[in-house]
């Protein structure tokens, strides 16, 4: 995250997120959407669509992408990039799984 020092924060269990679903982690700056794919990988993006700030956490997750609920842009979970023909990018946040727990890189000052 932006070159600032991050800490890994335990935000919950993998099973707290439904497969092909999403949950939100609220932070002072912004909401972060965590996504779980069909094959149990987890990704984290700012919960803001590059188009008109739709909440990506409310979209439909498929493959390694999510479709925004407002105007159906498709955003890649790994890189936050909008799929063609749309253009735009949502910020990604580092996240990893350890023993079924989700660790999120949260920026600290």
């Amino acid at each position: 995250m932006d070159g600032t020092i991050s800490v890994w924060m335990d935000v919950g269990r993998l099973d707290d997120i439904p497969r092909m679903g999403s949950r939100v982690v609220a932070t002072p700056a912004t909401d972060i959407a965590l996504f779980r794919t069909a094959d149990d990988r987890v990704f984290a993006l700012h919960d803001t669509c590059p188009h008109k700030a739709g909440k990506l956490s409310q979209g439909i997750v498929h493959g390694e992408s999510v479709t925004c609920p407002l105007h159906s842009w498709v955003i890649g979970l790994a890189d936050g990039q909008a799929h063609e023909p749309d253009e735009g990018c949502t910020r990604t946040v580092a996240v990893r799984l350890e023993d079924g727990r989700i660790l999120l890189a949260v920026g600290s000052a």
Partner: protein
Amino acid sequence: MNSIAPRRTRLVLIGNGMAGVRALEEILSRAPHDFSITVFGAEPHGNYNRIMLSPVLAGEKTFDAITTHPLAWYKENDIELIAGEPVVGIDREARTVTGALGTTRRYDVLLLATGSNPVIIPLPGHKLPGVIGFRDIADVETMMAASQSGKHAVVIGGGLLGLEAANGLARNGMDTTVLHIMPTLMERQLDPVSAGLLKADLGRRGIKVITEANTKAILGTERVEGVTLADGTHLPADIVVMAAGIRPNIALAKAAGLDCGRGIQVNDGMLTSDPAIYAVGECVEHRGALFGLVAPLYEMAKIVADRVTGTANSDYVPAVTGTRLKVTGIDMFSAGDFMGDDNTDDVVFRDAARGVHKKLVIRDDKLIGAVLYGEAADSAWYFDHIRNGTDISALRDTLVFGPSAGTGGDAPGVEALPDTAEICGCNGVSKGTILAAIGKHQLKTVDQVRSRTKASASCGSCTCQVENLLAYALGGDYDATPKVKSVCKCTSAGHDAVRRAILDQKLKTIPAVMRAMGWTSRDGCASCRPALNYYLLCAWPSEYEDDSRSRFVNERMHANIQKDGTYSVVPRMWGGVTSAAELRAIADVVDKHAIPTVKVTGGQRIDLLGVRKDQLPDVWRDLNAAGMVSGHAYGKALRTVKTCVGSEWCRFGTQDSTAMGIALERMTWGSWTPHKFKMAVSGCPRNCAESTIKDFGVIATDSGWDLYVAGNGGIKVRVTDLLAKVTTEDEVLEYAAAFMQVYREEAWYLERTAPWVERVGIEHVRTALSDPAGRRALRDRFMESQRFAQTDPWADRAGGADAHEFQALATVE
């Protein structure tokens, strides 16, 4: 990044149109970080595909669909867009530009791409409101508005633009006449024979054409009312579109003292007479030539990008261009010198019965021009010969029959093309590039090819060739002309095939359907998953477990998402009837949860707007406590049943329409349908509940009830068809349930009853419901599925179901 970054070159673009923005794309692809870019655009939006204004006018595309660069694109690329403010001055000494509102920016490099303006012939009356050109989205809006309020349209100019405008106006229901000064239409692209065929084709579409028309004056006092011709003919007109040509927009450049002829003069490197100022697009004049099609402009964009970024000293080389008319159903192509002279030979093919005419012009064993009318599938092949100057002496005998001549006629033409052949003229994409992309990225659909290569992304007229290339590259894997609309990009299977497979093969989960039908994606997409979820639910009501992950957010949250991410809550108000107790409860809920807005909906109930996601379960719990349940205002489901006061109160009422409506709503609530389903019951033919634009509408008569189906308010209004006349309330209920069930079982997902009935025909529906046994069987299947559907989703969630949907996983302080 601790050191101060070097100052980036300041690049200012004037003209936020097709050529200018393409140049920016080319520049960014060469040097993403070297420039700080500002764009001034006179139009108040991002860039769009101007070519596609014709399909927008014809109602075939929306403005959103042709927007190529939304505001987010500028933001994403760190480009400052000053939209809606034309530049009014360039100070070449100070290197600044200033906009009409006073915004001033400095530049190191200035790029002019101001396009061109329609020529407005200074006839008497040319300044009247209602006299316009055809250049931008504002013109399209003016034409569409005119078609709402007026009946007659006159288009001056029978060239490409004029005819596309005329087609669009006629498609909007206007009585349209084209006035063309020359003896034949599109004389710069068509020989007289093809032009005659075109005139006849347009006539069949209801477009009148007057050639050799000498327009004398435009008449009107407040706004345009008509047009008179020199021969005394008078034509009424609510709108007059001038499509008599375009003129490069050079006013700004001229005022700044740049060398201008008819256009802004540029050298081969697109540089103007000022070494800091480049120009591209229709505003330029290059070696005395002007431009009016995108292909050369896109080429200029590459040259200017090479130059500005210092990537290469490339030069612009003029090339032949080809033209097509974008009127759906009219197939034509023209390129090169198609008229010929004393030193050329013509090869002509004509099949009058099919309306096909082809003319090839040959000089010194080379093809130098071609006009194809009525059948233009081989245009790429001819165009390639023209551009390359191929020696065609060996081919001459069969040239006019196209590339498949001699092969029995069933080989696709693309096979014969060399790799260099240009398939997409607008974007300059060759056959070789497309085949390479198909191979490298394993592309399977036209959409995929389009997004990889830009082929067919501009005017779209080469889509057919791109399909043929896919067919050729993929062999049996590609269904060249899919007759059925596939469910989505993940499959070639159509909706009907999927529904049949679900029943025949007893498929009961989404992954099972995807496996059985060979889906190309692992877990589908946001288009197919909701469709499959619905089809399974409809097929196996007692067994299928709804997949909330395949539901659009509104149906998952049981509330409508709003643009700010809050939700709206609409409780059911049976038949539009409420009570003091319900109203009081609603008022209490609003106060308790500080809900910002309360609104009466168009569906006779009350909408609570601005509810936060985490508040939803509590709001629902309180509404439930007062006896209110979800109104499914968010669902592809039964929505409202509107009623009027009927015989209980109204002096004209013949039956108790309110009670009938409530009975219908009680029977059908909770049912999921392919698209939303609305009903209404009116107490007499005055029809105060608007029953004739509902999916199922009932109108009471003295002797009973008239039942109507497949109406639609919405985007495309459709009045219902009469389904049956019945006498008892039970029959109304029976028909309603049976109709909903055929619709549920047969329509495609997201197909409302109106388009569905348009597709299958009202007779099909009448037949399905006319036999009493069949009707009752449908009704019984409907009622069976209602046993599982009629649970209030709000009560479930207020009771704790899907709690994770409403709460954050964690909060970081």
